[in-house]
């Protein structure tokens, strides 16, 4: 449904996103996870055709965003970070405007409008001015706007930001329900949100994709020290032998040599066995001290660390 290849966007020398590629299948709900400023909004703005990429391609429902922007836009409903609402219109007027902007047939619109308003629960405020609505309602109207014309793809940028916990739960439930009929990409910097809603997660940090997987796999990967670097003071040959002798270690490679007696190794170990203790014990017994032990999945970890801390702050 959505096919993104090598997407890069620079602002002068700063790269907002670099070499981003992924695909989203029909009916999937994909979470776009990353800290603030990671490039989530930029990517979404490019997919929806609001801004253009420096290089790379976006195809939605088989159409290229540059070659056939109108066709692509027909398939997308977009809720940007700041809901695009005309403050001086009533909810009903605004949705009517969106419908005619998206060329929804007037006959269809009448029933569709009713459905959408009921779905996002704004029916009872439909005759109020948008500027007089609370933040939660504004967000819902923004969501309603994205649903106008029942596009196959929904792109939701931080749909729950700034809402109170009760509203967050409601919106999440709503998105989950929408996922039955729509392909959805939603961005968030909140970890539990992803596991609550999404089929798949794309983690992005500093403009690059760090990981793409299901939420379950990712959380397993999080505690997995399968690859790490270890710097040891001792003769390479002997250290290698000791490392390879540890139960669970699959492979050892020298990554860099500092001097005769000091080198870094990349160790690949079994997922289920924690090899760090035996390694320490064996090296210590042989009299080769470990100078450094570091996980290779650092960037992923980093991302998660940030996400979990912000989550903690916001929830409190």
């Amino acid at each position, binding site marked *: 449904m959505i096919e993104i290849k090598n997407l890069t*966007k620079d602002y002068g020398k700063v790269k907002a996103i670099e070499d981003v590629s992924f695909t989203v299948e029909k009916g999937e709900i994909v979470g776009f996870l990353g800290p603030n400023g990671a490039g989530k909004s930029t990517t979404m*703005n490019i997919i929806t055709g609001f*801004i253009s990429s420096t290089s790379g391609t976006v195809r939605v429902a088989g159409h290229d965003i540059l070659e056939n922007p*109108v*066709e692509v836009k027909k398939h997308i409903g*977009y809720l940007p970070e700041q809901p695009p609402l005309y403050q001086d219109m009533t909810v009903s007027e605004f949705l009517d*405007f969106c419908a005619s902007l*998206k060329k929804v047939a007037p006959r269809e619109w009448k029933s569709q409008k009713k459905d959408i308003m009921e779905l996002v629960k704004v029916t009872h405020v439909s005759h109020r001015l948008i500027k007089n609505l609370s933040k939660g309602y504004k967000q819902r109207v923004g969501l309603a706007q994205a649903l106008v014309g029942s596009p196959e793809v929904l792109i939701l940028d931080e749909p729950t930001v700034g809402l109170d916990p009760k509203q967050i739960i409601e919106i999440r439930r709503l998105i989950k329900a929408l996922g039955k009929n729509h392909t959805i990409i939603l961005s968030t910097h909140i970890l539990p949100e992803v596991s609550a809603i999404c089929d798949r997660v794309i983690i992005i940090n500093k403009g690059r994709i760090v990981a793409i997987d299901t939420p379950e796999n990712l959380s397993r990967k999080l505690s997995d020290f399968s690859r790490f670097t270890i710097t040891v003071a001792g003769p390479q040959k002997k250290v290698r032998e000791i490392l390879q002798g540890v139960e669970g270690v699959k492979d050892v490679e020298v990554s860099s040599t500092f001097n005769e007696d000091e080198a870094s190794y990349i160790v690949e170990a079994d997922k289920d066995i924690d090899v760090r203790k035996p390694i320490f014990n064996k090296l210590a017994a042989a009299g080769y001290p470990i100078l450094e032990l570091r996980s290779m999945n650092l960037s992923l970890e980093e991302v998660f660390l940030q996400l979990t801390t912000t989550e903690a702050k916001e929830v409190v």
Partner: protein
Amino acid sequence: MLAIIKRDFRSYFNSPIAYVLIGLFICIMSLFFVDSLNAGIASFTTNFISSMSYLLLFIVPILTMRSFAEDKKSGTEVLLMTSPVRVYQVVLGKYLAATAVFLVMAVVSLVFPLVLLIYGKPDGATLFSSYLGFVLLGMVFISVGIFASSLTENQIVAAIISFVSLFALTSISFIGNYVGGFVGKVLDQLSFIERYYEFYYGIIDITSIIFMLSFAAVFVFLTVRILERKRWSQG
């Protein structure tokens, strides 16, 4: 495009702005219309006609300042740009909406010729051409205002930019007379006020109409380019 025209047009009339502009326009123009009443002549005075154009200098920036600036500020620009419409349709829609409001004002101001018609036998053809000139001048001014509005997200800044540009545009013929030579001739060509007066005197020059419409088209086009450019250079 029709959706955008309709929305913007309604938005003008859902806020007091269009009403205040039209009401003040009629009120101020009445002060100049008195000349005709007192002199007892069934025609517009030169004063009336020139005031009409100078009032536009103030009205158009206020009319057009919201067009893009407001959308940019409130984020609705994203909605317009990610909807299945082309950029030129968005620009043209907003341009035509502002023009429609301006036309409503022109229609309301027909009370002046109406008074002349009731109490005298004015030369209807020149009244018509005076209005034709006024509408064309308004269309030119609005294109400049829309362009100014696309440059910034601050409405006040947009209004100031368009006022200054329009003021420069109307001063061109004076500068042209002062400079003389080839440059003066080129500047003279650009003098909308002189063309506008020709309409008032009762001369309809098709090339003037083409010139004014194409000037407006250039600015609408430039607005499209500005918005397209932003897609490439900003986020």
